């Protein structure tokens, strides 16, 4: 029962990711795509959580956190890129 529920949710997450990839490909604007990427990252993270339960292991719990951290960092990077073109400034003019 529980296993079935978990399996279903993993599939649902996979579908989510697939749909997000569609948005990522069709856009139309760059921020759209970044949002899609963020969604993909966050959902991958959730999936890894569920998968850990299914595999019965704690080996991947680090991955959850790291995915959270880095999907955030990449979103920021893309946002800054879109907004300012520069990701890391030498000296901010304010």
């Amino acid at each position, binding site marked *: 029962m*529980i296993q079935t529920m978990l399996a279903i949710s993993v599939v*649902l997450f996979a579908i989510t990711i697939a*749909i997000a990839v569609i*948005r990522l490909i069709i856009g139309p*604007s760059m921020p759209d795509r970044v*949002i899609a990427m963020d969604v993909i990252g966050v959902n991958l993270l959730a999936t890894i959580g569920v998968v850990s339960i299914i595999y019965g292991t704690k080996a991947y*719990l680090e991955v959850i956190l790291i995915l959270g951290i880095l999907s955030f960092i990449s*979103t920021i990077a893309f946002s800054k890129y*879109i907004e300012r073109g520069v990701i890391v400034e030498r000296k901010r003019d304010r």
Partner: protein
Amino acid sequence: MNENEIGEFIAALLILSGSIFSVISVFGIIRLPDVYTRSHAATKSSTLSVLLTLIGVFLYFLFHDHFVSVRVLLGIVFVFLTAPVAGHLIIRAAYRSKVGLADISVEDELYEVIHGNQDTKIEEKAKNEAEHS
């Protein structure tokens, strides 16, 4: 069913609902008309769904293995802290890079502050649409 199994079931239920939430919100990402509205779906619904799922995972490990996973807890906190910031930044970037609002939008008090004169708005919107389609 002992209490552990109940706990596990609840956890699984949380996870399942989280995944359902995520599918629904991702539909929003497809359906909604512009990047701003889509970001609503993304930052919130998907955050919620992930939070639900991770809490489920946390609970599962708690009940099944009697294991307090700090990493998952940290993960929850992390998503909680970063998701709104990410949403805010990407929306701001979108606006500042002149991604147009959907036609159904009714109000824009920010336009003049960022992009200046209201009159050019229509043109630029048209231009942006041409670029992005």
